[in-house]
């Protein structure tokens, strides 16, 4: 039962952990941005009650019930079979995570739109705003503030999901920890550093986002 800790070897990998963290955060930001565009489109289509509605419903349900790891494999190993071979492992994962996030964000934005009281739209109409003005000046700013807490949760969830990118050898934190594990056999040290990074960064993000939420809160 003997295990002697040796942190000095593991500490030489800290720059790689830091780079892995930056890559993970970059992937999270991009996926959230692309996912938000998908989510806005999906929510708009859902609200319009047109023929696109069941398609969006199907997309949301399929993405949410299938593991992200499978979508990552699909993007990386499957898409080249369709002639889409120009995505490397990083971009394959970003694509998969964006589509995955898009499904969750469609639901988030749909709920946000539904939560805007009718009177705001009516007031905007009665003061003579045009359709695009109503959307840009009234609906979207209100919706954004309503969904901000869910958006923060999605953001932190996505950050944790970037760990799955290790399966495609994307060099983010989990992959670095795997490498340290294999190179040095400092098993406990490698994994506790990785866990600590996710934990601390996740909580710092959460606290920061709560602060933004409080500042932007709608007075109701």
């Amino acid at each position, binding site marked *: 039962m003997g295990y002697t800790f040796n942190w000095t070897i593991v500490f030489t990998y800290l720059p790689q952990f830091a780079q892995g963290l930056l890559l993970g955060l970059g992937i999270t930001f991009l996926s959230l941005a692309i996912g938000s565009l998908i989510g806005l489109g999906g929510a708009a289509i859902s609200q319009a009650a047109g023929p696109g509605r069941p398609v969006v419903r199907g997309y949301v349900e399929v993405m949410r*019930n*299938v*593991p992200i790891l*499978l979508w990552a494999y699909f993007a990386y190993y499957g898409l080249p079979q369709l002639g889409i071979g120009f995505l490397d492992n990083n971009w394959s994962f970003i694509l998969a995570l964006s589509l995955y996030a898009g499904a969750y964000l469609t639901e988030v934005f749909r709920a946000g739109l539904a939560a805007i009281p009718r009177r705001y739209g009516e007031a905007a109409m009665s003061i003579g705003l045009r359709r695009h003005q109503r959307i840009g000046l009234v609906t979207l700013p209100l919706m954004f503030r309503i969904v901000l807490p869910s958006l923060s949760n999605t953001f932190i969830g996505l950050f944790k999901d970037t760990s799955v990118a290790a399966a495609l050898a994307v060099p983010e934190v989990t992959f670095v920890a795997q490498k340290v594990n294999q190179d040095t056999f400092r098993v406990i040290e490698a994994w506790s550093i990785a866990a600590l990074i996710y934990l601390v960064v996740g909580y710092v993000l959460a606290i920061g986002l709560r602060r933004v939420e409080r500042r932007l809160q709608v007075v109701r």
Partner: protein
Amino acid sequence: MDVVIPWLPSMARGLQTTLWLATVVLVSSSLIGAIGGLAIVNGPRPVRWFLRGYVDIVRGIPILVLLFTVYFGSSAFGSGLDQGQAAIVALSIFAGAHMTEIVRGGIGSLPRATVEAAEVIGLTSVQRLRLVVAPLVLPRILPPWVNTAVEIVKATSLASLIGVIDLLYATNSAIGTAKHPIAFYLTAAAIYFVIGAGLSRAGALAERHYRYHEY
């Protein structure tokens, strides 16, 4: 899709492992959640602190990191856990934290007056739990419980990365020989979808059945 057919038996064996793993973890995490949820509300202060720490730490760490930590970490101490055991332990720790939080939230949402009334009419703590708290809390926590069950099924796919031969692992090894990744991944996705959507549907039906008490 014809390429997939000869591989369906091996994928079915993988599916069996997935379902077995998910069932074991669902049971163990529900137990952790029931005990942990009650203890985090009623337990002595050190127990509450410990559980709060457990829930908040585990929920902040990706499942995959938890899984690797348990699998590789246990091997640092003697013979360690095999892949299946490590997957069960890691996923139970993960899902148990979520379940604890769900049960805590469910109990916390009970009106104080209800619990006090049960005390006042002289029910013992076991009777209060059995006759008042459980019947009121269980229907309320059903929706998040079903969501967590779906998350557990999805999370079992990560066990393929430590070598558990589940549905995703079986799919990948079929692709290794038969190629045609798209057909195989779509088949596996369809299977995961049916399980997840089936659970959600069953949950929605059960919810409607038990929604007798609204206030």
